């Protein structure tokens, strides 16, 4: 679909939008039977995979290099999630991006992205995984920079690409380590073998893979690109930066968990990084004015949660949260898009009272918000609780405390957002002609909302499906987390309920506020370290321009000089040639005589 759209001229493709939507629907419909086919298998399917295709790519040295597509439990689940969210986004975009001049291109890249993501989840070996991973990075770059005439979008897309690229370097090194150790990229070969590796090697490989995952999934300190990526179109953000691409890193770690388990250190690192990310993501979300940025930091925080789940050793916890998060976060983003579309602003300070004008949006958005805060009976409650539960099982009390605190902050900032946007006096001049979004935007949101409500109850089934037990959280944990969530909501209401501003908060805790507002000055740190690197780059550049170009150009110049000199021989005059011929003849005779020893 991408190739086709790429080749078509703009006006033609702008009218052919039904094609990618049809393709996406087809993909979604296909993924359901695939999922159902794998479902009954459960544990066994998780290990062996239901179906696979291998494409041989030749050999490296003596070892065979194959690209494998394999459908197993994880792939099937992810396929359904990805195609569903992608379909929702595509239908939503019909309305949101209506009238956009380059809409054909938008759909083309969206299609390419979805296919790349599907390849990532279907990959049966690390190499194909990596290649599809890179394509996703490209699409992210293209979509963030969709409105490339805006400098903000340009910079953000480059930033996103570069930061994830840094992670990808680690990923590539990890691939090299795996190849050197096992001689194959195939998951079914590498993962069972991982248990037999020396801890050092397992750690090295795991860390390198973790590097890649951190870049893609916006873990601290690679999270800096995600908030800026909000310069792209909102539905694209919903798909890529909430539900799918950023989840790819989580997926990588989940797939590679045997390697992490073989190296205890790496697993611990995952837990630690996840916790830090969850916490700082939540804190930064509390002080943002832009709706999308709040959601972006929230995503960072939730990704941290997924890493916590994985770091606690439970694939199910991480992946289940991935699934629920995909649904409710994309729902939230689509809702935000709906609001932005109606009010023409992204700044929360200019919103308020939306509830009166846009009931459906309010309803669906609230479902998403409650799910995110972890309130019963929405899915977010189940998945978040599962993660907290896993922490308890590991007796990781400190981490548990921090995660719980982050949950409190999550509820807090969502409440803040909700109050600011939906309740109170409207502060926006567009408010009067704001209207509810049309069906194309509402239906996807509605579907996602329903899923958000329902999916949570499937936790036991999903657990069995994904290979480890999933259970309803026990009473103690459940009450603890629910209390925390309610506390968060209460706190939010307290501080913002009466339409009070953040001045109170700021004045009381100005230092903390400063630090959190400025993203912990992380960007500054990056800038200063980058400055040194820049001088190195300049030096290398000089070398390249002067020396290497000198050699290349020098060859050309020398040839020309030589040619000019030889040209003098070609005088065009008869006698010159005669003289040369005679001289040559004499020379030959002399040489012949010398050689014969006369």
């Amino acid at each position, binding site marked *: 679909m991408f190739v086709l759209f790429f080749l078509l001229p703009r006006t033609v493709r702008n009218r052919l939008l039904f094609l990618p939507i049809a393709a996406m629907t087809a993909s979604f419909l296909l993924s359901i039977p695939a999922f159902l086919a794998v479902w009954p298998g459960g544990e066994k399917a998780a290990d062996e995979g239901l179906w696979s295709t291998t494409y041989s790519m030749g050999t490296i040295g003596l070892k065979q290099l194959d690209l494998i597509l394999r459908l197993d439990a994880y792939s099937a689940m992810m396929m359904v999630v990805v195609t569903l969210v992608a379909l929702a986004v595509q239908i939503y975009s019909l309305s949101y991006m209506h009238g956009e001049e380059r809409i054909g291109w938008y759909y083309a890249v969206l299609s390419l992205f979805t296919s790349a993501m599907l390849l990532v989840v279907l990959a049966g070996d690390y190499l194909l995984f990596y290649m599809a991973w890179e394509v996703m990075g490209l699409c992210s770059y293209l979509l963030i920079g969709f409105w490339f005439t805006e400098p903000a979008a340009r910079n953000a897309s480059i930033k996103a690409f570069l930061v994830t690229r840094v992670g990808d370097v680690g990923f590539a090194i990890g691939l090299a380590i795996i190849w050197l150790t096992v001689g194959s990229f195939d998951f079914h070969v590498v993962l069972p073998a991982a248990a037999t590796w020396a801890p050092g090697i397992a750690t090295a490989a795991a860390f390198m893979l973790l590097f890649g995952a951190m870049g893609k999934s916006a873990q601290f300190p690679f999270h800096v690109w995600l908030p800026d990526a909000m310069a792209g179109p909102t539905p694209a953000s919903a798909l890529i930066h909430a539900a799918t691409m950023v989840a790819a890193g989580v997926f990588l770690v989940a797939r590679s968990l045997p390697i992490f388990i073989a190296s205890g250190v790496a697993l611990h690192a995952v837990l630690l990084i996840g916790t830090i990310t969850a916490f700082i993501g939540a804190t930064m979300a509390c002080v943002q004015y832009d709706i999308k940025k709040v959601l972006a930091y929230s995503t960072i925080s939730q990704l941290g949660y997924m890493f916590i789940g994985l770091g606690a050793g439970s694939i199910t916890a991480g992946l289940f949260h991935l699934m629920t998060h995909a649904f409710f976060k994309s729902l939230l983003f689509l809702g935000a898009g709906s609001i932005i579309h109606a009010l023409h602003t992204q700044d929360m300070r200019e919103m308020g009272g939306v509830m009166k004008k846009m009931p459906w949006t309010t309803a669906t958005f609230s479902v998403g918000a409650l799910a995110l805060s972890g309130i019963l009976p929405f899915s977010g409650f189940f998945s978040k609780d599962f993660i907290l539960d896993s922490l308890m099982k590991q007796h990781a009390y400190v981490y548990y405390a921090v995660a719980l605190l982050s949950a409190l902050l999550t509820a807090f900032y969502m409440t803040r957002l909700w109050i600011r946007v939906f309740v109170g006096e409207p502060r926006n001049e567009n408010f009067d002609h704001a209207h509810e979004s049309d069906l194309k935007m509402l239906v996807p949101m509605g579907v996602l909302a329903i899923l958000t409500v329902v999916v949570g109850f499937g936790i036991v089934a999903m657990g069995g499906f994904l290979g480890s037990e999933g259970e309803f959280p026990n009473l103690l944990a459940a009450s603890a987390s629910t209390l925390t969530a309610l506390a968060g909501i209460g706190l939010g209401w307290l501080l913002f309920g009466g339409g009070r501003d953040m001045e109170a908060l700021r004045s009381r805790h100005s230092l903390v506020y400063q630090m959190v507002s400025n993203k912990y000055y992380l960007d500054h740190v990056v800038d200063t370290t980058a400055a040194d690197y820049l001088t190195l780059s300049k030096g290398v550049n000089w070398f390249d321009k002067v020396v290497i170009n000198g050699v290349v150009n020098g060859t050309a110049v020398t040839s020309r000089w030589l040619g000019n000199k030889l040209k003098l021989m*070609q*005088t*065009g*005059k008869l*006698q010159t040639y*005669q*003289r040369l011929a*005679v001289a040559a003849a004499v020379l030959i005779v002399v040489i012949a005589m010398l050689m014969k020893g006369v």
Partner: protein
Amino acid sequence: MRVGVEFFIWLAAALFVLGLYGALSKRSAVMIFMSLELMANAININLVAMSRFLTPNLMTGQFFAVFMMVVAACEIGLGLALVLALYRQTNTIEVEFLDQLKG
């Protein structure tokens, strides 16, 4: 002293070199042709002398010299025709001015 074959060979060589010098350094095309003619005749002398002194019965050299004289004559006719045509084109017979093929 007895005149041997060496004498004639030296004579031929001298004439040849003179002709060569003329062919290489004369400006006029006609003079170049004269020098070429001189070279050809030097060779004729060489041939006849060798034949006379080494294999007088066969007379190969003499035959060949006659052939060469005929060829030389034809060659001169052709060459002078060329010079004539050249003069009609460029109004000069000096070979210095023929450098259109200069590279």
